[in-house]
């Protein structure tokens, strides 16, 4: 780094050549006339600034105020209804928290999920949306999110024990605040059942008989859209829970049991008994197309989550929306039926660790997390996005439709709740070129012997590096 005298020398040399440089008439920014003193000054200010920033403190617990100020929120609620719901929550928070200015960064759900690793390590927002399951404690272990035991202490009375287990990391600290969930069940249309004289099956044999009856009546008994890869996992989950129990299921999904186990074979064998009743071309049909079949009375039943009501609502016909109903997956006659286990994925809010603004926003972030734990707040979101049931005990259930009440009841009476296959297991195992593909192979030729397929699943699991 020379000083400005060198720059002048070059300039004089250029001028000596007497060249017209019309486009270079304005000084290029490289011509910084910095003297040695200038540089010292800059260095001095720079280190002063660094000193002040360091004094600002990065100790999260001394964040200062909790009202007013700013807050940043990273959200994957990109559906128009969810987005509106999130905005409503934020507006309510701003009003209730002394005018906190909240910036929301909304990104599509799948993109958010795919880029979560880079997101949390880069420049995440102070607070972000996520879901319960396998990955949350993993992020906690890696130091990518902040423990919020102080928040949880204030709000835990508003939650049942089932939710309490869903928020803890491996170290016992709390990292998330649950806000909503949706159950998986068997959906059907009330009017179709009434018109054809069907009754809700309570056990497996009744279920199969119902399917056979629907087939002769010209319906596709069970709608299936496995093009997206994940829907069939719901059926696997519930069959495994009923046949082999919650413990085996969670151990299987975390690699502590083998996929080649005969218990897994029984699941597939049971599954084979109903695959003949699936709607046509399941691997080429998306979940939305399959839901359309239910809506159009072309299919009789659909194993899916409560969000199927979104498709019904998009049809713009309240009459049809009212006809949507569900029943819990029938009992399979094992001792595990009593667990009444089901998939009910829970959405949460978490606090990041590496947000550049967290040190000053920590108070507001904690206040926000407390705010979304309230029943009234969750009700605000629920108004825009009725497919997502609030988790708080004090949520106002009087405005719930019969369907939503039923959804809440089935979850609160469940003995065991799972988070869905791809959230309870490693994402690389459960993802597109993983279990999704294997299940597609199963659906493509369901009557084939699954021993080879199960072997492939286990081999795939074994090939994955340890999650360290």
């Amino acid at each position, binding site marked *: 780094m020379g000083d400005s005298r060198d720059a002048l020398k070059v300039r004089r040399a250029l001028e000596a050549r007497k060249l017209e440089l019309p486009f270079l008439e304005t000084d290029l920014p490289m011509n910084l006339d910095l003297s040695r003193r200038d540089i010292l000054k800059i260095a001095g200010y720079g280190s002063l600034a660094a000193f002040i920033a360091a004094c600002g403190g990065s100790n999260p617990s001394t964040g200062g105020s909790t009202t007013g100020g700013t807050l940043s929120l990273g959200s994957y609620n990109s559906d128009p209804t969810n987005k509106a719901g999130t905005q409503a929550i934020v507006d309510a928070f701003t009003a209730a928290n002394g005018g906190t200015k909240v910036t929301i960064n909304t990104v599509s759900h799948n993109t958010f999920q795919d880029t979560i690793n880079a997101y949390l390590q880069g*420049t995440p927002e102070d607070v972000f949306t996520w879901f319960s399951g396998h990955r949350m404690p993993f992020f906690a272990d890696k130091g990518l999110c902040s423990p919020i035991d102080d928040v949880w202490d204030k709000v835990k009375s508003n939650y049942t024990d089932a939710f309490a287990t869903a928020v803890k990391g491996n170290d016992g600290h709390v990292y998330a605040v649950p806000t909503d969930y949706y159950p998986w069940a068997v959906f059907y249309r009330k009017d179709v059942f009434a018109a054809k004289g069907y009754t809700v099956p309570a056990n497996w044999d009744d279920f199969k008989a119902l399917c056979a009856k629907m087939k002769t009546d010209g319906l596709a008994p069970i709608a299936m859209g496995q093009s997206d890869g994940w829907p069939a996992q719901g059926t696997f989950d519930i069959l495994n829970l009923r046949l082999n129990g919650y413990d085996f299921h969670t151990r299987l999904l975390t690699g502590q049991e083998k996929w080649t186990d005969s218990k897994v074979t029984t699941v597939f064998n049971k599954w084979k008994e109903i695959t003949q009743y699936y709607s046509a071309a399941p691997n080429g049909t998306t979940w939305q197309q399959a839901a359309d079949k239910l809506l159009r009375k072309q299919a009789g039943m659909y194993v899916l989550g409560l969000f199927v009501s979104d498709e019904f609502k998009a049809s713009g016909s309240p009459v049809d929306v009212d006809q949507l109903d569900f029943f819990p997956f029938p009992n399979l006659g094992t001792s595990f039926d009593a667990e009444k286990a089901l998939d009910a994925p829970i959405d949460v809010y978490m606090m990041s660790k590496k947000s550049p603004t967290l040190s000053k926003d920590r108070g507001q972030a904690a206040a926000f997390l407390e705010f979304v734990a309230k029943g009234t707040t969750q009700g605000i979101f629920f108004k825009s996005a009725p497919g997502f049931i609030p988790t708080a005990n004090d949520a106002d259930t009087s405005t719930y439709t019969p369907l939503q009440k039923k959804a809440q009841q089935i979850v609160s009476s469940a003995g065991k709740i799972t988070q869905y296959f791809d959230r309870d297991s490693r994402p690389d195992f459960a993802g597109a070129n993983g279990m999704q593909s294997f299940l597609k192979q199963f659906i493509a030729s369901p009557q084939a012997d699954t021993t080879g397929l199960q072997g492939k699943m286990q081999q795939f699991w074994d090939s994955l590096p340890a999650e360290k």
Partner: protein
Amino acid sequence: MSTISVAGRSLKARPLLPRRIRPARLALHAFLIAAVLLWLFPLLWAVYASLRPVSETIFNGYVSWPKTLNFDNYTTVWTQADLPYFYLNTLVIVVPAVILTLLLASMVAFCCTQFSWKFNLVVLMLFTAGNLLPPQVIIVPLYWIYLHTPIASFGSIDVGRFSFALFSDNGLLYNQYLGIILIHVVFQTGFATFVLSNYMKTITKEITESALVDGANVLRIWWSVILPLCRPALAAMATLLFTFIYNDFFWGLLLLKTGDRRPITSALNDLQGQFFTNNNLLAAGALLAAIPPIIIFIALQKHFVAGLTLGSTKG
């Protein structure tokens, strides 16, 4: 029929034939028209779907007669996906990227073709091969670079929610306009260098020579002598680069975190919900997004055709 060479162009002595419609020509037109209809059909069917409300297609499917046809999807997506903002946002990324790419590529092409020096061809090879690599090969380390390269901050241009940082508002390349423009420039410079260098090879070195003898320096020769000669090539490359960068989906999705900074193609992605997607709405949005490249292409068609193959036979 004789051919005469005059100033490098062949002139044909052409007898005047009466214009009659030959059956072969009719058959050709018939074939082409059939092909064109086949070509357009999928696109027109999507336009049809975008004109229908999703409530209707959910009930009746897409292969059905319309009960209502309207532009509701278009008006909705215009506001819901905030298209005007994202058009502007995309232009802020595409236009500087195109200009910078052309500047850099023409500089490299100029130096490598008008002067001979040792590593001439190696440099050209590096640039060309760089563009031929699939982007997935480099994305992960590039992430890391973007998260770890310190960039100074000199403030930003803020207009409403549009915030163009000069040059970074988080001290990194990640999630900055600079970052996304930079990767486009670097990625496309290879292709552009290759094309422009082939074109410049046709400019004889004597021109450069005589300019040097006159006392001009190389920068001046590049700017005032060579670039004007390359104007058709530059125009063609500009249209090509516009299309490629505008339609980019990948970089914008991965190197920009804030939804507001993403280009329009990535922003359309956000219309998809966690589960539910209104496909008719998405189609309307995508068709609207497709308009600028279509306009550019149609308007500059002859340059386009010239552009893609500059770099092949010349003389």
